[in-house]
Each structure stands twice: as C-alpha cells, then as structure tokens.
C-alpha cells in the first residue's frame, strides 16, 4: 500500500509531501524524504515491551505495571522533572503539562538546549518572522547564519528557499542570492554566493558592524571585524539593503556560542533595522519536528515556552534556574520522566551523574543512551508512523501527522493519559 502526503517526523521542516510504501506493519520504501527522514520512517530495532531495571539486569513488565510505576514515582517525588517533549505530538504534551501541574513538578523541553536562548531574545525584542511559504514565493536574498541546513535540515533549501519554485521569481534558483555566515566552511557554505567566515565567538561583533552599516555609520567600522573584512561587510550590508525581500535563518551557531541570547537579540535588531529599508524577516531553524509545538503547548497552557516550575502551585519561569540542565547539575530533582528525547546523549556528564542517582522513567520507542539510566522504559508508537497527532513546523504552521501503519504500540498520549488518570485518582483520595 502506498500512502501519500505523509508528514515527516524528523526535523522542524515537517515536510508533508512524503510517499511511503507499507507492507504489513513495516515501511518498505520512502519517496521524497531526505536521508534523515527516510531512515526514521524505515526505523527498526524498536523495544518490544516495557522493561524494568532489576539490580544488574533488566526484566520485562506489562504496560499496566510500567504505568503504575511511573505514576507512583511522580506522586512520591518532591521535585519531579518532566523533560523532553519535542519528539512527540501536541496532544501528549498537553497531558504532560497537566501532570506537571498536579505533582507540582518542573516541565522543560529540549529547547532549553537548542533555541532557548532565541526565545529569551524574542522576549526582549520580539520576532519579525513569517511562514516558510512567504520566503519561498518572494525572497531574493536568504541568509543562513550559524546554521548548516544541508546537514541538519536537508530539504530546507529545496522546499522553502534556494531551489524552491517562487511565485514572484521568474527563475528562483538564479534570482536568489544566498549568504552563509559560519565559523566553518560547511557544505552549505559551498553553495553560497557569499560566504562570511567569522572567527569563533565573533558573531555579536559582526552583527553590530552590520547594524552600524545599515544605519549609515560605515566610518566606525575597523578594517576587519572578527576576521571579516570591512569590504565584505559593506558588500553584505548592500546586498541586504538592495534586496526586495530578505530572510535570515539562524541556527545553534548563534544560540550556543558565547553571548548566547544576546547574539540572537542583535540579529533580530539588525532585521528590525533592515525593515525600515526593505522587507526582512528572521527565523530559527528549529531541530526536532515538534519542538516548536512543545513551546506552543506550554505557552497556551502555562504562559511560558519552556522551563516551567510548578513547585509553588503557580507557573514560574526562570531559565537558568528552572531548566533541565541546571536542575540536574544542581542535583535538585528527585525523579525524572523523560518523553521524546534522549538527555543522556545530549546533556553534559554532570547531569547524567544525577540521572544515575534518581528514579527515571522514559517513554521512547527505541533503546537509547538514556535507557541505561532508566528504572523503567515504556516503548510507544512513533508519531507520524504508527500514531497521529499535531506537530508545529519551525514557522509555527501546525500540521497533523499521519498514521501510516498500525501496530500494537500505544501512543504517548495514551500512556500519559493513563498515568495522569491514576495520579488524579490517588490525589483525590
């Protein structure tokens, strides 16, 4: 059976034009997706059923036992951490928020270690952005800053920017210019019309220099700024001001480097400045297919996009204090529920030291690095393959992922709803 218009549950591009061929309970071929999406859609080696760590070994347990274990763990914890959420559908994320509220826990998602700093910057200066189709149809200048779409978002260029068909461009590929700003000469840098190579840590200074140029204060610019020549800076500023529609896409190259959210703030303010001359927009290259959805769900339910602490009953937000890495590194939480992410692979080791000391339950279809720290792991259906639900694309467009095949695995939402029901029962007693 061929299923069309499938939504790819890998990265923030959330491509929805995938075709998959299904035989029984397996995907046997994938069309239109990139290598990342294809591998995920054809993924194998799922965990068969829930497992419980038993001393130095593992034993299989039932879903009922696993759910009971998780509910009890959260109910008896003083400061539980509910972390992850970017790799699951919105309906499950909503249950997660209700659970955190009930047990007065901390709920954080993976954006605290990807675009959390971008959100902090947006909270300072706002965000002039647009949907991807606006860029596709209009942009004659695209800037990738500290992002490497060829590796991290392989179809971004072909679906939405460089190679994409655009209504207002006669020959999109020829009429669009691409500028890449990075410290490395990445694959994406190789296709750029202009590659701006910055010395590590120099983004803030280069952004400030461009802002000065756009404001007509070119005389203040020294001969080089963080390794970029004055001539190139002028060339880039002129390209920006001369564009009819410019779009900046930035990645972790800005959020993870020194300066963090101040880099993003400077980039946004450059775009706000350019908006006085021409049309310009800026957007984050979001990683997980539904990391943005997790921010959206958290925001409408709690008021804040990530790092929410319910220990006082009200929703409290203070990144750096209420974010997962900090809470683990300070050895603050006494239980952790992990959903749709793999902190053991992605967090600094000091965090893992603490994960090893506390009870951990994880919902994930596959054994991963975090499995080693689990007391219980519950395998679930993969959203976009054997479960459906809402995901938000990197530009905020919500799309319902399709279920392309049926398995016996329950979805994240089912497991979490059953856990939440048990917890409510217990609390009301």
């Amino acid at each position, binding site marked *: 059976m061929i299923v069309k218009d499938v939504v790819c549950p890998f990265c923030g591009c959330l491509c929805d034009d995938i075709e998959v061929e299904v035989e029984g309970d397996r995907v046997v071929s994938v069309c239109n997706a990139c290598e990342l999406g294809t591998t995920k859609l054809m993924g194998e080696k799922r965990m068969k059923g829930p497992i419980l760590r038993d001393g130095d070994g593992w034993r299989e347990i039932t879903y009922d036992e696993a759910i009971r274990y998780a509910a009890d763990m959260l109910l008896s914890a003083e400061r539980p951490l509910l972390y992850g959420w970017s790799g699951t559908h919105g309906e499950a994320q909503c249950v997660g928020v209700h659970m955190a*509220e009930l047990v007065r826990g901390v709920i954080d998602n993976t954006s605290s270690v990807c675009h959390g700093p971008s959100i902090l910057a947006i*909270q300072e200066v706002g965000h002039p952005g647009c949907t991807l189709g606006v860029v596709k149809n209009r942009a004659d200048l695209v800037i990738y800053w500290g992002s490497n779409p060829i590796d991290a978002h392989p179809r971004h260029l072909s679906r939405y920017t460089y190679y994409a068909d655009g209504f207002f461009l006669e020959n999109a590929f020829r009429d669009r210019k691409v500028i890449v700003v990075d410290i490395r000469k990445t694959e994406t840098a190789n296709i750029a019309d202009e590659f701006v190579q910055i010395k590590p840590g120099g983004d803030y200074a280069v952004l400030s220099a461009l802002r000065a140029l756009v404001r007509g204060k070119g005389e203040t610019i020294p001969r080089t700024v963080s390794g970029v020549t004055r001539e190139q800076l002028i060339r880039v500023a002129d390209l920006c001001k001369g564009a009819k529609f410019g779009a900046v896409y930035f990645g972790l190259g800005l959020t993870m480097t020194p300066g963090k959210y101040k880099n993003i703030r400077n980039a946004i303010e450059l775009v706000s400045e350019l908006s006085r001359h021409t049309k310009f927009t800026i957007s984050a290259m979001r990683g997980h297919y539904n990391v943005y959805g997790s921010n959206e769900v958290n925001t409408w339910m709690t008021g804040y996009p990530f790092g929410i602490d319910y220990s*006082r009953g009200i*929703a409290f937000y203070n990144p750096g204090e209420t974010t997962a890495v900090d809470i683990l590194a300070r050895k603050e939480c006494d239980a952790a529920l992990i959903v749709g992410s793999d902190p053991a692979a992605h967090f600094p080791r000091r965090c893992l030291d603490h994960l090893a000391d506390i009870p951990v339950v994880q919902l994930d279809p596959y054994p991963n690095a975090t499995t080693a720290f689990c007391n219980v792991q519950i395998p679930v259906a993969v959203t976009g393959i054997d479960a459906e639900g809402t995901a938000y694309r990197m530009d905020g467009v919500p*799309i319902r992922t399709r279920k392309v095949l049926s398995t016996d695995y329950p979805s994240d939402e089912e497991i979490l709803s059953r856990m939440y029901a048990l917890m409510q029962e217990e609390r009301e007693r």
Partner: protein
Amino acid sequence: MSELLIRNACVIDPLKGINAETMDIAIRDGKIVEDVSSAAEVIDARGALTLPGGIDSHTHICGTKVNFGRYMSPEDMRAGRTSRCGPMHATSGYSVPTTYGNSYRYSAMGYTTLLEGAMAPLEARHTHEEFLYTPLQDTMANTLFDGNWGIMEAIRDGDTRRVAAIIAWTLQAVKGFGVKLTNPGGTEAWQWGKNVSCIRDPVPYFEVTPAEIITSVVEANEMLDLPHSVHIHANNLGTPGNYTCTLGTLGLIPDLNPKRQTLYATHIQFHAYGGSGWKDFCSKSEPIVRFVNMRPQIVIDMGQVMFGRTTTMTADGPMEFNLYRLHHEKWSNHDVELETGSGIIPVLYRRKNLVNSIMWAIGLELALLTESPWQCLLTTDNPNGAPFVKYPEIIALLMSKKYRDAEFATIHPDTESRVPLPAIERELDWYEIAVMTRAGQAKALGIQDRGKGHLGLGAEADVAIYPIRIDETDPSVDYERVIEAFSRTEYTIKRGRVVSRKGKCLVDGNNATFWVRPEVSDDYDMEKDPDFIEKFDRYYTVRMRNYPVQEEYLNRNRCIETEAEI
C-alpha cells in the same frame, strides 16, 4: 436527564422583548423549556439581574498571534497568576492570559460564547487546539481573507462567484465561522514591506483595490448565505485623520440582508480619528456615528481603550510596525503565505498622554451617540484597547455621567477641546447594556436562531445571574456597585450546568465550536478545480490534503450548513 429551575430571576432578554420581568427559568438537558419536574435542582435568584450568557463578538483569545503574545511576554504572564484549585487549572497572564485564564475570567463575568476575531486559515488548527482548552465558552473563529491570492485574482477577473467559492471551500476546510477582512489588501502589500493608504490604493501586483475587495467579498458573503456578515477591520487603523477612510469604507456597503447588518465594522474607536497629525489629533466620533445612525446595514463595535498596560495584536502587520516605530517596544510580525499576516507589540495607555486620553473618550462617544444599542456593541477588541476584564468598568462609564466626569478630571487636561464627550449627557440603561453585551452580539453574528443570546424556549441554557438588584440600584450614582456586579456573577450557567459561582469555576467544561459549511454546486467546488489545485500545490508549503482541520479538533461539533447561490 438533568433539570434546573431558576426562581425569582429579574430577567432582561432583549431578543424576546423582556425588560426586567421577575420570572422563573426552567432548564432541561441544557435547553430552556416551559417547565420542569419537582425533582429539578432549584436556584433562587432573589430578584437578581439575570441575563442570557454574555457573548463577545470580537476578541483575541486563541491562535498563533495570541499565543505569540504570551510567548514573547513573560512579564505579562507574571502579572496574573493563580494556582490549580479544584477543577481549575493554574493560570498566568494579565492582558494575554493562558487559555484557562481567559476561560475562567470570562466565565466569572458571565460570558458563555466567544468569537476569536482573526484566524489565519493556514494556521487554523492552532486556533482550534486552543479552543479545546477554553472549556467554559462556546467558540467560533472569524477567518482572514484580506490578502488571499485566489480571491484577489478572482476579483481582478471580475468573478465574484469564484470569490464566493474560494470562501466556501476555505471556511469548511478550516472550520471557520465568519469572513474577516483585516486591512484588506494591506496585509499582502506588507509582505513587500508596503501598505495601502486607503480604499482606492491598488495592491501591488494584484492591481485590485481594497474597495474592490470589500465590495466583492460582501457580495460573496451574501451569496453563501452565511450567518454572520463580513467583519471588517478597515484600512488605515490608528492614524490621525483616518475617519474619512472609515466613512469611505462604510459608504461602500448596500443593505443586502433583512435579518442582520451587511457589514460588521470592528473596533471603530481606532478608525474615528481627526487631525492631520499627532499634534492636532482629535475625535471624529460624531461624523462616524451620524453615518451609522442612518444605515441599518452597519453594525460597529467600540474597541474601547482603557488606561493601563496591555498587548496589541492584529493581523494588520504594517500597522503594528508603525506602532513599533512610535513606541520602540519589542515588535513581532508574522506574515502568512498567500493569505494574511499579523503583528504584536505591548503598549501602555496613559491618562497623562493626550492621544491616549482622546482615544479613551472616542470609544465612549461611539457607544453613547449611536442611537440604537443594536448597532454599537461593547468590546475593547480584547486585548488591543484593554483586557476584557475591564468590561465592567466600561459598562459603568456608559451608565453614569458622574463616573465619566470623575474619570475625565484625571486625564490629560487638553482632551476637553478635542472631544465631544463632556457634553454628552446620555446614560445607558440596563436593557441597552444587555443588548450591547449579548443580544446585539447574537443578532449581529446571526446565531440567535441557534439558541444563542436569549432565553426563549429551546434556547441554549446559557445564563448569567449578577449579584445586583436593578430596582434598588441607581447606576448613575452607584457605579462602583455596577462594576462589582458585572465583574463576578453569582452564577454562570452554561448549557444548563452551573459552571461558575462567585468567581470560582466549578467544572472542567467542554466547549462547542460553531463553524460553517456552505453547500455549493460541483462547478464551484474548489476541491475539484484544476487551477485552484495546481496553484495550491505550487505556492503553498503545505499539501492541499494536509490543509483542512480534522474533526478531531472539535470538542462539540456545531456545523452550520448553508445553501449557497452558486
């Protein structure tokens, strides 16, 4: 079967012509009925003011831009926090509360039905997701068509029937309720960083004018027999001297529908400005109202400004950019491919600011000068003019000259020479307030036949009982009591259940969403139109099959089917 009897209610029900009669209201299974058995639960209203549940016909509570307002404003979230308590979840936010915050606070004020004022079709799923978490009100969404490429092309080709066909397809696909035009043409121009100055300015590339968009879409709206009229946020919002543009816009509208208005012009306060700049900025409420008083085909809402901090958010992207250049506060913008846009900035309306003071006065003048309360509804364009929790104060201002004078004494002293407000003696009565906050809203939205906005037999049992006896209260003097009463109902009843009591919500509700499906002939079914499909697939970034909002996103699904002429 569940039964409820409200005894000794002092009822004002304008759609049924009832004005302050003391009576009993019988409710069975969520509907108003003739009588109930002796087993019914009884509420004794003790002569308290009892109205149909409140309806807000223009508010921003759910969806992409509203949520972005929260996302970018942790300072606003901190300004209103409550903990989980009984069935009530925790809430955050003052001017843009979380969905639960909106729902509980509206419910405490007796509101049972809300219309989200601006939903971008491409992002409709988001609005509906938030509706699911707005449990205590029925919801519906105005759908944005101001920069729709297909519609502008059809208008350029002179094909109004195709305009109607595209609206029909889109509304049923995105589960939309009404047709919204926000700065028609301007939102498309803004995707090039430009704007249109008024209704005769052509839109770049498409070469149609806002006037053509407005007249064609109004005609198409009637072809589709939609319950609500076209709902417009006119061009040129917020600029000195814009009242002429507003009059030009209203002047385009013929009287096409005997049951309701032909155009709903929203937040007119922002469109009633005189002067050639900020220096000679003044009120032009009088010429606007004079025009409206002569034309039953127009309904307006106030868009009242109240002093304090709030967040402005609208699909009108270029207007928000202009505000940003004035205020230098943080600014967000979000253009939506082939459809529309939006912008957000926080603002502080200050009594000591002359322009803000004049804006405050204009909103009140509109409501006080419009002869028929059915033609001017009470809104703040929440949260643009003020958060909806300010409605009780607005009601009191409209009912008390004394209160207005007391407030007037605290605002910028030069206001007096720029506005007619001090000379207006009118004080609205309870009946008029009931019209402006529920009955008029139900009629304007075309949902009175769906049992909304009144307490007639068969109506939805949405009832608000306010802790005030109107026979013992003189609102022109006791305005503080009026504010208190409208801030917190004694009982808010939704679909026959008490959902809120003295400000505390008692149940985890389950909202209904109203949406429209116009029945069109095969020739006008865009699902089968090769040109529409081809353009969709080429220029949207979402596949046409993935675009429609599935019924999973509706708690209680209230589809309104209409017979279209096409």
